[in-house]
């Protein structure tokens, strides 16, 4: 399932004002894998996600997606390859859910035209893919935070991307919806061969749903590297690595063949 390289991050550095967020980060992400970035607040995981999507330009380094450099690609080409789901999205106008999702067809629609039948059909498919066909005519402003998250995933899916980026997809969801959304994301990746890169706050979620985990630390002017570990969940989520990332002690429990992190 996990084949050749989908995303390559090459010595990416990023500074906000005087504080260095990312220092020469390099990663290679395989096609069709689910990769989660985990780390404390301010470790630069969202920044890295935005750099991958060319929403931010790094000070140094480059990002290649399917062999092409993201910041030299025409924006509509990039948007056909990559979908992005922002964190906690709000809008001022009560657009219908369907009208929000269909904006994901933007990279396929030429400047002076509007969505056509095909775009509408793909929108309906995406709505049913994430299980919200019933919400199509609801105003986006009147649905719950969890439903909005699904709308934005559907919007990214109508871009027909081979890479899906998600920034904290569970942040506004309740206990059950966190799990069901992550399950769905993983299913999308498995069924369609979509590469998923997401950031998550909860290391246990990362353990449960990732093929690989990137564990990041916050730079404190030291010479340490951003990336503490990058690899399979079992390799990366060790008590030592967690200690290095968060500065806290955890115990690893084996429960029914699954690993669980427990703060001590």
């Amino acid at each position: 399932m996990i084949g050749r390289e989908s995303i390559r991050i090459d010595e990416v550095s990023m500074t906000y004002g005087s504080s260095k967020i990312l220092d020469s980060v390099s990663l290679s992400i395989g096609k069709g894998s689910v990769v989660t970035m985990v780390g404390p607040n301010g470790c630069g995981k969202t920044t890295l996600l935005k750099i991958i999507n060319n929403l931010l330009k790094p000070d140094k380094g480059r990002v290649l997606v399917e062999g092409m450099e993201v910041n030299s690609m025409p924006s509509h080409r990039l948007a056909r390859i990559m979908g992005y789901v922002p964190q906690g999205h709000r809008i001022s106008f009560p657009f219908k859910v369907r009208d929000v999702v269909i904006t994901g067809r933007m990279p396929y629609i030429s400047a002076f035209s509007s969505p056509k039948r095909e775009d509408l059909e793909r929108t309906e498919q995406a709505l049913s893919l994430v299980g919200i066909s019933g919400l199509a005519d609801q105003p986006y402003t009147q649905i719950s935070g969890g439903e909005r998250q699904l709308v934005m995933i559907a919007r990214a899916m109508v871009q027909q991307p081979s890479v899906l980026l998600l920034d904290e997809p569970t942040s506004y969801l309740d206990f059950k919806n966190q799990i069901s959304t992550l399950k769905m994301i993983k299913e999308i990746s498995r069924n369609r061969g979509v590469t998923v890169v997401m950031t998550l706050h909860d290391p246990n979620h990362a353990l449960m749903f990732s093929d690989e985990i990137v564990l990041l630390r916050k730079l404190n002017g030291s010479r340490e590297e951003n990336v503490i570990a990058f690899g399979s969940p079992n390799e990366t989520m060790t008590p030592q690595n967690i200690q290095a990332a968060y500065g806290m002690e955890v115990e690893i429990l084996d429960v029914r063949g699954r690993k669980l992190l427990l703060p001590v």
Partner: protein
Amino acid sequence: MYTRIGIRAKLLEVLRPLLFLSRGRWLLFFALLMPLPAFLISMNIGTYPVSGLELAEIILSRLMGHDLRLPTVYDTVVFNIRLPRILLAMMVGAALSISGATLQGIFRNPLVSPFILGLSSGAAFGAALAMSVFPWMPLQIGAFAFSLLAVGSAYLMARSKGEVAVISLVLAGVVVSSVFGALLAIVQFAVDARSLQSIVYWNMGTLSTASWSKVEIAAPWVLAGCLMLIALRWRLNVLALGEEEARSVGMNLERYKFVFIVTATLVASAVVAVAGIIGLVGLIVPHMVRMVFGPDHRILIPLSVTVGASFLVLVDDVARAAFSFEVPVGIITTLLGAPVFIYLLRKTRSGGWE
């Protein structure tokens, strides 16, 4: 080759969508065709009422060159007074509404007006200069040039590293408005009483000085701008969802923002130049359309044109015929618009700014 029945069947097929339109579709048709009844009603209002039939007769007699059965004063009233005024009112209403709707989409805020970037203050200053200090300068050119200058400088002030943040634009607009307000005050302070009077009167916004030449000045800008905005209208939906959201689906954000701001500004400046500052039309009309048809710009933008045209021509009917003297139409639109603004402000809580 159709048989009789074949033709009838064909006809039914064409008409069916019309006959079985849903309620929403009927409303849509009504809103699209509204300028027509508004035009006919307005023709009929005034000292010399002209009905639809009489209008047809007057126009035909001109076209065919045969004698008119009505008194010739009707011909004069229609061609020299009422037609230019009605057309100008429609154009101004359409332009201010489409401009307002567009900027509201870009700013993602229903409270934004076409004048948010300093357009009206610039125009007022330019017009005042033309009326007093530089009498050689045509009034319309002065107003037009300075309104563009005002918006242009707000845009450049807000621009940094090739990006224009919406909140910076708003603040730059505030500053530019104040600066041109102060410059206007200098002119008003310095000129004689008669010039002062005309400056103040211009600022109120009126259509009473309508003429064919004013229609001709504004028409090309309004027409071209409206066509452009109608062609690009779906992109406003993409933009209205947020800037990062728009960029992540591949929109060249700064380019589109530039195109939308320039077009909305040209359209509004052209009509402000010929009619003065007619306030809050750009707020009321898009709001009314949104209340009935929702926020989708694919519908909102074209309907802003037709509803805006109808709205202002009808309000102008009130301005010219409801009282024994003529009221500047800008005063009426502002008084009508204020409650709408307050309603929107209450409804959106923080005023829509995140």
